[in-house]
């Protein structure tokens, strides 16, 4: 009996130790990534890097910077976010107001969106590519934006959906009882109440669109210039990093580290902003 008690304690101690070890491992691993990017990126980052387009022989160690990729990524991200927002808001309104939150049709659309969410971006890229081939479109900013929109739409809709679901039913009912149409209720009450959640979901989508490489690889192309029209090919930061990292030249690989730092900073800023908005929103709703 005493021995049994002793083992019980020992087993507990061992597993608690393992748990702590696992937590430290996770923390260490995650911080290690950020630290590596900072450590390798900072020495290679310069004003020239982020303010100039690539010049002749850039990928052999020539002068210039990654302004083409920074602008390209921002354009792709912004385009997809704006496009996604104009689609996501009507869909969210339909899901929660017109279709009825838990009606069969709403459940079907939600399931479809969840499935779209799970599809890896390389499959989106492949699908976008065959559509472009069928229509005879070349890799361009527009094609990249369309594919990225498809990629981030589920994230945005489901994010907004979760927030709107938490709005009390009484608010719906009292608005309608005052004689408002469902459209007026949606735009003037529900969307306004859910605004912080909508902004957060939008930022999340933006972050995902900027960081994705596999979907834009074949649809947006790559170029050393900043696109002037929607039909121009466009560079993006993840692809710029990917291509430069494969270079045999030390200086070009250094630029990849710097580009990775720029991308990480953009993502961290977006993440920080959305956190700030959520925190503020939670304070007000209590």
């Amino acid at each position: 009996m005493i021995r049994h008690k002793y083992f019980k304690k020992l087993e507990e101690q061992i597993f608690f130790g393992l748990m702590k070890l696992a937590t430290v491992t996770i923390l260490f691993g995650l911080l290690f990534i950020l630290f590596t990017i900072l450590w390798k990126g900072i020495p290679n980052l310069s004003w020239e890097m982020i303010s100039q387009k690539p010049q002749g022989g850039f990928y052999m160690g020539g002068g210039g910077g990654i302004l083409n990729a920074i602008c390209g990524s921002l354009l792709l991200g912004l385009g997809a976010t704006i496009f996604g927002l104009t689609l996501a808001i009507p869909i969210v309104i339909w899901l929660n107001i017109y279709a009825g939150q838990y009606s069969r049709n709403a459940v079907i659309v939600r399931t479809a969106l969840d499935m779209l969410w799970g599809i890896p971006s390389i499959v989106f890229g492949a699908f976008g590519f065959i559509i472009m081939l069928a229509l005879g479109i070349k890799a361009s900013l527009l094609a990249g934006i369309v594919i990225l929109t498809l990629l981030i739409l589920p994230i945005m809709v489901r994010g907004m959906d979760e927030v709107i679901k938490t709005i009390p039913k009484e608010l719906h009912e009292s608005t309608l009882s005052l004689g408002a149409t469902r459209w007026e209720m949606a735009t003037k009450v529900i969307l306004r109440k859910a605004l912080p959640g909508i902004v957060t979901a939008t930022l999340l989508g933006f972050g995902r669109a900027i960081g994705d490489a596999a979907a834009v690889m074949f649809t947006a192309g790559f170029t050393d210039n900043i696109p002037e029209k929607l039909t121009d090919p466009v560079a993006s930061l993840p692809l710029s990093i990917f291509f430069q990292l494969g270079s045999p030249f030390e200086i070009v690989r250094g630029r990849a580290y710097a580009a990775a730092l720029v991308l990480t900073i953009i993502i961290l800023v977006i993440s920080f902003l959305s956190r700030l908005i959520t925190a503020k929103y939670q304070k007000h709703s209590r």
Partner: protein
Amino acid sequence: MSLRILKDRFACSISAFLSACCVAALILIAIGLIYKSLPIFIDHSLSELFFSTIWSPMKGKFGFLPFIISTIQITTFSLLIAFPICLLSATYLVELAPRSTLKFFLPLIDILAGVPSVIYGIWGVLMIVPFVRDHVAPFFGYTTSGYCILTGSLVLAIMVAPVMMHLLIQVLQSVPHELRDGTLSLGATHWQMIKLVVWRKCLPGIMATTILGISKAIGETIAVLMVVGNVVQIPKNLFESGYPIPALIANNYGEMLSIPQYDAALMFAALLLLVVILFFNMVSAYVLKRVTKSIT
């Protein structure tokens, strides 16, 4: 009819149409990929595609076995690494750690879940590849370039960790407090409570999380592509290079149009990914739904 009501009707039909488009998009993707991969079946049987190891597009030989095996190996090993660590760590954070620790971890996990995969790839190339080449492989008596299955699995494990942690913490938090208090009051130790009550209660949720982790790991492209070596072969051990399916698609886009049936073969690969991942997601969604139903 007044303008207001007309506006309402209009908005209703537009938004219903857009929502229907979401479902249509999913079906369209599936149909598009099936249609484009049909030509591969003219000369090749399904068993040849799945079980042949010969991959030479120039000669019209498309055996997917090396890619399938690589994908399975990388996914399995990354989950074997990530799952125990994530489960133990999530349990620690929910059950034992002070609230402040959990509050510190949650934002960190969310931020890292949003970090683009190319960043994980760079980290893999900079840190994990030399580490595996110089320390891990010699320890086991192998020589390797570092670009191998093990490296891919490690990078992938770190990538799926934030996603799995986030879900596991939610699942563990859903266990009612009365259950914990009741178990402890019966004289169980803290560890017995976790092992026999909390984990058992969460089992479906833990399974669903793992399945989601698997489907995320299968589809991951760029990070794995950067560290796995991309050699068409069936890896005999963890220190040989592999070539998972997403990397195959990503690497061969440019040249696929010049070789007959090559595009159909690649679309078949994409279709394979789609089907497998949709299957896993449906299973996990079904399990998660039953879990939330049983709780509420």
